[in-house]
């Protein structure tokens, strides 16, 4: 019986009738056709490769940090090097993995398919976005090679502008250019969703994946430019000492924090909203049920996007910002927590009276639900003024945002990777290994980050190379967990690449899912997506209706 679970079910494997119809992958094999492609599906593959590379680069920095923190003394590396490790871990993971991950890979690939369009609104702009991303990534890698940057991914002034002597400008420019890639992707999605929906596809019939990306794109377009100009001002200040952020010349370092967090808090919603879109798709498909409260989930994505711009000050409660402003930010932060809570309740209610199956994507989705709930609840701790005064800049904060970013955003990314892998590559991944890796990642994650809540409340500050002995036990748990987590992420890399060559060929709809990308085009889809533009007649996730077979 056990092997049966891990063998692909008959309807998952491609029948002979599908034959080797030409698709976007075997349309042509020349390097030029890949590097100059304007097909949104190929650009998504380019992003998948470059993003996975940056993810593992960031992961290496994470492992080095955790190894250093195994012992209270700073015995693995100098403090100078350690500061560069956590800075580069932050910069690579935030700007080059979490922000682009789900939108650039799955948004690019699936958005046109889900709304019945032939491609995104501006295909050439889409390719430009990938080149901007790659240029930014190369600049960041350049700053690592030339000696790294040690200001923390937040580049706080006046340290980053006056006192740091590492290549701050190189890393900041990398983030600046990658920011424009994010802006152009967001712009592309907004126009595509508004203007290129298939006939019959009204706003409230669209899949929630599309709603999630619409809300994300609004944040990308409205938030990223403010950090772009802030990075330019930091570079000007560092090169010419123009005095804007330098207190000796009359500048105010807290202004930098305001401008930086105006973008960087909505940026965390850029990271989580696409993952939420993925979770809505996966949970409905694997419980074979319409999502519970469709409008509430869709509108709470928009509420998060808009309210997300009002709350950045909760990063600055102890920064010398006025008490009045902290009060206002605290109230608004509590308001933005409500839509996230609504989403979690709605996803849980979707399982009720469903027919739940535990394929790998569903395991990741349930993992997301659990970890995102803990992440969200600890966020309430940080919104509370009095508690944040104690835990600000300690490992409690590190644990909170890793629960949201790794537990939420990356679990959602892995769910998407496994759920749409047959559609993207036309191959089935080994189900057994996938479930095993999901379990390992879940265990490794909790062992890594839950002890950090404890040591955080004990008062261990962030970014510490050396710490008092009584915190060691929690750091040993955390380092042990991180090695399990590291292995957990390597396993999918192996079996997914393995499946490219020798995985069984996938049928157009291996999960019997609803959605244009499953019902109306083969896997992998042809370059022009649909032979004739589909007409949408049914609600989203109408699992009571017959599944279309292309």
């Amino acid at each position, binding site marked *: 019986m056990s092997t049966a679970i891990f063998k692909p079910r008959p309807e998952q494997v491609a029948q002979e009738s599908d034959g080797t119809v030409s698709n976007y992958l075997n349309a042509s094999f020349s390097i030029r056709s890949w590097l100059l492609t304007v097909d949104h599906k190929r650009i998504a593959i380019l992003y998948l490769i470059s993003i996975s590379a940056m993810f593992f680069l960031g992961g290496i920095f994470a492992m080095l940090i955790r190894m250093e923190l195994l012992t209270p003394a700073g015995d693995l590396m100098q403090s100078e090097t350690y500061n560069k490790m956590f800075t580069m871990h932050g910069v690579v993971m935030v700007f080059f993995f979490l922000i682009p991950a789900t939108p650039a890979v799955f948004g690019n690939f699936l958005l046109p398919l889900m709304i019945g369009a032939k491609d995104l609104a501006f295909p050439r702009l889409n390719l430009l976005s990938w080149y901007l991303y790659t240029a930014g990534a190369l600049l960041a890698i350049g700053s690592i090679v030339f000696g790294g940057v040690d200001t923390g991914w937040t580049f706080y002034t006046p340290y980053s502008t006056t006192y740091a002597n590492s290549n701050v400008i190189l890393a900041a420019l990398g983030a600046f250019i990658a920011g424009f890639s994010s802006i152009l992707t967001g712009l592309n999605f907004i126009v595509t969703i*508004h203007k290129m929906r298939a006939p019959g596809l009204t706003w409230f019939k669209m899949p929630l994946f599309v709603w999630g990306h619409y809300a994300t794109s609004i944040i990308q377009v*409205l938030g990223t430019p403010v950090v772009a100009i802030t990075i330019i001002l930091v570079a000007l200040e560092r090169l010419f000492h123009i005095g804007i952020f330098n207190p000796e010349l009359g500048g105010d370092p807290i202004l930098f924090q*305001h*401008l930086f967090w*105006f973008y960087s808090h909505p940026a965390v919603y850029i990271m989580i909203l696409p993952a939420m879109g993925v979770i809505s798709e996966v949970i409905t498909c694997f419980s074979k049920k319409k999502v519970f409260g469709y409008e509430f989930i869709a509108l709470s994505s928009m509420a998060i996007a808009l309210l997300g*711009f009002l709350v950045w*000050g909760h990063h600055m409660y102890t920064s010398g910002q006025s008490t009045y*402003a902290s009060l206002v930010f605290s109230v608004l932060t509590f308001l933005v927590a409500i839509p996230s809570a609504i989403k979690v309740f709605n996803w849980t209610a979707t399982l009720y009276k469903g027919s739940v199956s535990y394929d790998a994507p569903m395991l990741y989705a349930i993992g997301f639900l659990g970890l995102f709930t803990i992440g969200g609840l600890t966020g309430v701790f940080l919104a509370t003024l009095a508690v944040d005064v104690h835990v600000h800049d300690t490992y409690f904060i590190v644990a909170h945002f890793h629960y949201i970013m790794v537990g939420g955003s990356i679990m959602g990314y892995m769910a998407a990777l496994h759920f749409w892998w047959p559609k993207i590559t036309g191959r089935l991944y080994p189900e057994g290994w996938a479930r095993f890796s999901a379990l390992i990642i879940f265990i490794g994650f909790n062992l890594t980050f839950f002890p950090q809540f404890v040591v955080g409340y004990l008062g261990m500050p962030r970014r510490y190379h050396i710490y008092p002995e009584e915190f060691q036990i929690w750091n040993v748990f955390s380092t042990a967990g991180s090695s399990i987590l590291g292995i957990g992420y390597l396993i999918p890399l192996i079996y997914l690449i393995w499946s490219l060559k020798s995985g069984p060929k996938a049928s157009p709809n291996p999960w019997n899912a609803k959605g244009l990308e499953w019902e109306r085009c083969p896997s992998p889809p042809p370059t022009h997506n649909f032979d004739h533009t589909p007409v949408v007649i049914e609600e989203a996730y109408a699992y009571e209706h017959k599944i279309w077979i292309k």
Partner: protein
Amino acid sequence: MSHHVVPLKTYYTIFFALLALTAITVAVAFLDLGALNDVVAMGIASTKASLVILFFMHVKYSSKLTWVAIIGGIIFLAILLIIILSDYMTRGADTFPQAW
């Protein structure tokens, strides 16, 4: 597919209105109105800006979506300016009444 074509005459009237407003704003700047100077300067600048946006950029005749985009952008710019200013304005008021 002629998107709304604005007659030349409108362009000329808007052009002269903009020049006149520029002259006014420069003239008013030299009068001593105290704090009112900034308010007047911004008022005139906003009228000029809305003239350019409505007529030169055809927004007066464009779809509602364009209006939503513009007003959305202005609202988010206002959020940035007002909330940052609210911090600086209340810096001195840290000693709140203990009665809280």
